Each structure stands twice: as structure tokens, then as C-alpha cells.
């Protein structure tokens, strides 16, 4: 499903964010990516949806060879994965329903399909009746659920989440995690970078720990393992 082979990433300022990372994530895996701040977690995640390009190495996500993608193929690749961001990245002037529908409009889905799918995911994330509200009218937890709904609406085979609970209180963090577990139960691969010790330790899922740009641990039923 996702494979990195000896991936290096150096930024323009000479800082090496990743140094020779190799990892394989299978279809249906639920995988936490942990590590101290500045260890390279975000770069690791951003490489998967081609917000960053590797300096060296190969990355395959759902059949796409990321570093060889042409400019016009990038949007097509992104439609096959759902991405959830720490800052939600919702379109502020669109309603909740319009934000979710946007991911279907880009694939030119019919209005009927859009309406049906939007209603389904709103139900799934527990936001029935809030479709016509604007993002700023919702709480942080609700906004993140909209972010998750948008990531799910295309029925992607993989969800990539970069600190999705970073701005949320424990209750909402748990709600998001439960959502991911439900989706994962249906076969969707989940890759989630997080600083949330409680969630990682309670779930006992696969944990990839990144330190100094390298994989320090990769455990099937791992723990958070850091003090921060």
C-alpha cells in the first residue's frame, strides 16, 4: 500500500529531515508515527501526499510512484488518499456540506452522488444537521470531524493524518481516534502522526518512531515511548 525505499529529504537550508528511511505499510494497517518535535514526522507524512518531494529514494502510495509523478498527475493521486490536517484546512467561506462536497466535485461526481455521500459521512462523523453551518461556527473538535468527513467522502484506500488531534481536547481526540478505528475496521489504511501518548498507548497499534530523521523503532503493538 505504502512503501518507502531509502528515502532522504534535505531542505534548501541544508537541514536533513529524513535520512535513509525505508518502511512498508500494508493495506488495512493502522499505524501511528511518533517522535520528538523536529524528528521528521511531518516530512514523513507530507512526502506521502506529495506536498514535499524526496531528495533521494522511492515512495509508492497506492500504486503511484510519488517522486516520478508529473505535475498534472498529483491531483489524481491526492484523490486516492484522504488527508487530515492538524489545522483542519477547511475552506472558511464554504459551509460544512460544501467543504465535504468539494472533494467529490473535483472528481466530477453527479449532484445526486454528492448529496448522498455527504449525508452518509455527516452521519458517520456525527454532524447531522450541521451541514449548512460555516466552519467557524463549529468547535475545534467538530471542525476536525468535518476534516475527517472530507477525507473519507471519496472512499479512499488510505487516510493520512498529520497531528489530527494536536489542537483538540482529550474528549474530542478520542472521538477522532474512534472514527479512524471504525474506518480502519472497514479496510482503510490509517497513517497518523501524533504526539498524543494516551491514544497511542491505549490502542496498542503499530508504532513507527522517528528520531533524527531515521526510524528508531517499528513495533507491531507499540507504545508511545517518549516523555514529552
Amino acid at each position, binding site marked *: 500500500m505504502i512503501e518507502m525505499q531509502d528515502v532522504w529529504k534535505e531542505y534548501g537550508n541544508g537541514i536533513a529531515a529524513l535520512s535513509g528511511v525505508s518502511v512498508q505499510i500494508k493495506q488495512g494497517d493502522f499505524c501511528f508515527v511518533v517522535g520528538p518535535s523536529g524528528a521528521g514526522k511531518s516530512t514523513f507524512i507530507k512526502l506521502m501526499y506529495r*506536498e514535499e518531494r524526496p531528495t533521494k529514494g522511492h515512495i509508492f502510495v497506492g500504486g503511484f510512484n510519488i517522486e516520478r509523478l508529473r505535475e498534472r498527475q498529483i*491531483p489524481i493521486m*491526492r484523490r486516492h488518499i484522504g*488527508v487530515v490536517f492538524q489545522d483542519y484546512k477547511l475552506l472558511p*467561506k464554504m459551509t460544512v456540506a460544501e467543504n465535504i462536497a*468539494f*472533494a467529490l466535485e*473535483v472528481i*466530477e461526481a453527479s*449532484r445526486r452522488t454528492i448529496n448522498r455521500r455527504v449525508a452518509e459521512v455527516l452521519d458517520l462523523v456525527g454532524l447531522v444537521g450541521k451541514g449548512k453551518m460555516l466552519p467557524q461556527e463549529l468547535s475545534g473538535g467538530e471542525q476536525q470531524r468535518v476534516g475527517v468527513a472530507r477525507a473519507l467522502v471519496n472512499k479512499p484506500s488510505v487516510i493520512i493524518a498529520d497531528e489530527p488531534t494536536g489542537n483538540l481536547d482529550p474528549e474530542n481526540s478520542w472521538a477522532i481516534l474512534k472514527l479512524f478505528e471504525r474506518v480502519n475496521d472497514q479496510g482503510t489504511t490509517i497513517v497518523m502522526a501524533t504526539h498524543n501518548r494516551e491514544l497511542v498507548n491505549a490502542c496498542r497499534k503499530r508504532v513507527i518512531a522517528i528520531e533524527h530523521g531515521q526510524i528508531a523503532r517499528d513495533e507491531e503493538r507499540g507504545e508511545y515511548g517518549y516523555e514529552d
Partner: protein
Amino acid sequence: MKIRTAGRHTREGFKNLFRNGWMTFASISAVAVTLLILGIAIILTLNIQNLSTNIENQLQINAYVSDSVPATALKGLEQELFALQGVRSIKFISKAQALLAMKKQLQQNSNLLDGLGNPLPNEFVIQAIDPSQTVSLAQAVKATPGIQNVQYGQSYINKFLAVISAVRDAAFIFIIVLLVMGVFLISNTIKITIFTRRREIEIMKLVGATDGFIRGPFFVEGTLMGIVGALVPALILNELYQWLVTSVTPFPPFSFLPLAFVMQRTVIVLILCGVFMGLWGSIVSVRRFLRV
């Protein structure tokens, strides 16, 4: 692109006008102010053009016939003059008609002419097809046997034509300068508008939207802003010009062009410029933020 996607872009373009209320207002205002000034320049230019045409049409050559030419030969001379290259019209004024006209002009002093007989010659009044050719035509007329002398305001014609040409050139340069200033003003306004929406564009790209899909509503929005930005000055200019035509009586050779004539041309130019400005602004500005 599917029809429903084109429909979606149009809908979103309309919605964006309202979603971005103040920025839309700023952009439309920039377009409207520029086009208002452009519209005034167009109306002025059209009327200056009209004035110069009016004056040019009044340029004429007075050709005085030698008294040695018998009355029977006058018809032949008229035909000969009319056959010269560049003659638009020719009108004969007989000695008797000229005397009558002079007496009318002199009014109570007309008795001064008594006892002089008729000192005035027969005369042809000739107009050139192209007013700028008046001088050369006058020379050809003068060279015609039977013509004693010609009058055509030699130095006056050349100077006048030079002034008209300078006014036209100045108006043209004025319009170009205005357009450049307008494009600069609008591009800055649109840049600010889009800059505030760069995050929006970034999010759209991360969700899998192609560049074309992102541009679609921006194009619609830009075009609509251009049209509205053109209609506002068109309405203002229509009212102003109507007021001018009805409340100011110009003296000849100046005359106002009819309202419909002026506004048809002005509105078409304004809308085309508005749409161009809106579309161009969208294309240039969105392109800057599409690299995500």
C-alpha cells in the same frame, strides 16, 4: 470538462462574489473607476472627432472666374473643375448672386456699391473629398484655364489640420496611459484579493483539485466583476451625457453626438475592457498561488 462542472464553476463564481463581499467591492470599484475615466476619454474623443469632421467639412475653395470667360463657357468650366481628382462637390455662384449676397451683407451701406456696376467675378465653391487635400486641389483649380484666382485659407488650413491631428494623438495617448494605470490599479487590487485566498487555493490543491478546476470559478468571478465594473460607469456616463446634451446648447461648428450613438460605442468598449481586466486579473493572480 463535464457540463455539470462548468455549471458548478459558474455557481461557485457567483457565490464567491458574495462570499468575499468587501474584496469583491474593492475589485469592482477599481474596475469601475478606471472604466469611468476611460469612458469619459472615449466620449470626449468621439466628440472631438465629430468637431474636427464638422470643421473639415466646412473647408472650401473659392475659385474666381476670369471675366474673359464667356457665359456660354461656364458650364464647360464647371465640368472641367468637377473632373479634377478629389473634388467632392462644386457649386456655381454667378456675379449677380455674389453681388446680391454682398449687398445683403452690407445692409444699409449697400448703396456704396451703386455706380460701381458689378465688380465681382463669377465664382465656383469647391469642396475636396479629403479635407487634407484641399491645398493641392486648390493649386490644380488655380492652374485651370479661365480661373483667375483661388482662396482657401492656405496657412489656416495647414495649421488647423495639424491642431486636429495633435488633439487626436493626445487623446489616443491619454487613453493608453489611462489603460496602463487602470491595469496596474486592478492587478494590485486583484492580487490582494487572491492573496487573501491563497490558503483557499492551497487547500483545494491538497484535496485533489486540478489547476483548471481551481481556476474555473475565479474566471467566472473575474468576468462578472469586470461586467459589473463596466456597467456602473456606463450608467453614470449615460446619465451625465444625457444631462449634457439636454442642458447645454453648443455653438457651431460644435455639436454633441447623439446619446445613443455615443453610448452604444462606449458601453461595448467598457464591457470588453472590463471582461478583459477581470479575466486577466484572475489568470495572472491565481497562477501565482497554484504551485502547491
